[in-house]
């Protein structure tokens, strides 16, 4: 029985573009800047208990803004957010009790020790026994360094401390904004394994934003791709894989192979732009073995037949434009000042 933990309904946010900044950019000057910036545009999504939900999008797509609204840091222009059934607008405290989170990057009091920071932040969530703090320090692998000041911590240690701070209220839902941002490959792997372990072993529900596709492919069971404030693709990763992951086929007679696949299976094969004499096909539910047998049976020498690598990367690049951009629109009446 799926149980929604985080529900986002028709969520939108319009920022009033900074008057001074736009004047400085040589844009529309004056006090009545007629433009507003729609950072998030009617987003709908549901994270169910047990999900590891990947929230993908290029820079400036509106991921952090959505997360800020989901945590009550900024007020939506319209729409609503519910966490564990509690409406964030009317029942903020109960909603936030279920969550451990960070936005942009985890932040700490650099002049205090790691442990003191954990105690401070966890104490804001409730009564936290010392044993629980110790357990969490062990869990994220900071044992031995917890009594040092945070300003001597490396980036990776701060990331782990950030996750520890999220874990300390023993949340049902973790919301992480680019948890591996700025880490080296070891750090990325470590954090990824940690999140995976938490999700698998502790049954934590995770909502994470990222633009690292392999991270998401590796961790998540559901994803949403957001661009310019709107969700352009959403679904279970395994289902998306079925409908979007192609096969790469290399035979000695690519043109005949393409014709055969079209005739026999009604699947369109296209030449692979990245590899000579290769075809890319959407298998449309046909098993790899089936296609292989048909091609071999027709006397085509199959040199390579495998699901395409980095399919999510490709899909992401196809769906999103590269340059950072956002929608501009005329200001709405009664819109909040930024």
């Amino acid at each position: 029985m799926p149980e929604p933990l985080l529900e986002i309904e028709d969520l939108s946010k319009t920022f009033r573009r900074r008057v001074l900044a736009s004047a400085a950019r040589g844009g529309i000057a004056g006090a009545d800047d007629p433009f507003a910036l729609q950072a998030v545009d009617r987003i709908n999504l549901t994270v169910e208990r047990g999900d590891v939900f990947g929230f993908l999008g290029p820079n400036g797509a509106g991921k952090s803004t959505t997360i800020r609204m989901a945590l009550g840091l900024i007020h939506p222009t319209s729409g609503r957010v519910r966490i564990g059934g509690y409406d964030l607008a009317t029942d903020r405290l109960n909603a936030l009790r279920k969550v451990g989170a960070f936005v942009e990057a985890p932040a700490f009091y650099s002049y205090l020790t790691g442990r003191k920071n954990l105690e401070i932040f966890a104490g804001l969530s409730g009564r936290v026994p010392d044993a629980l703090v110790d357990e969490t320090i062990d869990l994220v692998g900071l044992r031995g360094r917890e009594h040092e000041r945070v300003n001597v911590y490396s980036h990776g240690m701060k990331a782990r401390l950030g996750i520890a701070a999220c874990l300390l209220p023993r949340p049902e839902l973790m919301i992480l904004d680019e948890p591996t941002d700025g880490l080296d490959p070891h750090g990325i792997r470590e954090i990824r394994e940690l999140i995976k372990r938490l999700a698998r072993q502790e049954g934590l529900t995770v909502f994470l934003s990222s633009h690292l596709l392999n991270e998401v492919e590796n961790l998540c069971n559901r994803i949403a791709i957001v661009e310019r404030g709107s969700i352009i693709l959403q679904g279970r990763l395994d289902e998306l894989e079925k409908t979007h992951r192609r096969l790469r086929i290399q035979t000695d007679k690519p043109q005949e192979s393409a014709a055969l696949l079209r005739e026999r299976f009604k699947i369109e094969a296209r030449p692979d732009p990245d590899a000579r004499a290769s075809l890319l096909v959407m298998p449309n539910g046909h098993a790899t073995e089936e296609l292989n047998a048909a091609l071999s049976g027709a006397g085509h020498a199959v040199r390579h037949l495998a699901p395409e690598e980095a399919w999510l990367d490709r899909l992401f690049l196809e769906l999103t434009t590269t340059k950072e951009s956002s929608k501009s629109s005329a200001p709405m009446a009664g819109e909040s000042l930024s």
Partner: protein
Amino acid sequence: MSGPVEALSFTEGILAYVRFELTKLRGRRITWVPFLVLTLVVGLIVSVFHYLQFTTVIQVFRAFQIFFQSKEDFVNGYYMAAHSMNPMFQLLLPIFISVASGLMIAGEAEAGTLRACLIRPVPRRRLILGKFAILSGYSLALCLFLLFMLVGIGILNFGTGDLYTLNMAFHNGETGVSMVPAAELPFRFLMAGLLATMGMMVLAALALLISSLVETAAMAYVLTLSIYFALLTLRWLPFLDWLYPYLFVTHMLRWQQCFYEHIKLGEIYVSLVHLACYLVAFLSAAVLLFEQKDVKS
């Protein structure tokens, strides 16, 4: 892993929050700088008082029919303390309080720790009121520390005695000389300290209001101090005389009353009421703004 942690009761929550703010305040090095600066300045004042001969002051007193032979007749610990309070309470303490308040909200916003606090199940109101409580305590500590140092070190160097002051040194528009007997002075200084603290709390509330409006700590204290000093200067503009009784800076200086021969309690009450009104106004505005605010840092 166990279930969610137990929520705190209302009072526990408040106490826990105040304790955390205290931990942060204690941990920041800049918290302790004012105490060091005040100690150094008091040392400086003592050497200046050792060095000065006060011949002009003796002449001025003579104009009021009070005849001192030498500085030893009237310069004592209390005299030094009372005459050093003006610049300290008008200049130094407001700077320290503004910086501390600026760091508390705008500074935490800059560091990102504000958003880390705000995504926890704590009412925003409690955050800002907790910070105000800590700032009030800090103001009290600074004021009392300063007075303790001034009076204590003053007495160690110059002994005790009755306090003679020229009324005009304390801005009440009167002339003449006040004499407060030595026995009354500890109480007078304590009262002055508490009144000054009340003034500093109003400034702290204003600073928190500004701190929750702007994005950086530097912006917060520069703005706060600009407003404070601008208002303080208004009294030199004769055509704004009518406005002066309504400004909070006027009432922040009311501790000076404590060194008149006969304290005008009425004026002190009026000032306390004004300060309380300003305090409530600034603090409510800060709470309202902070609760509405989009946290984008």
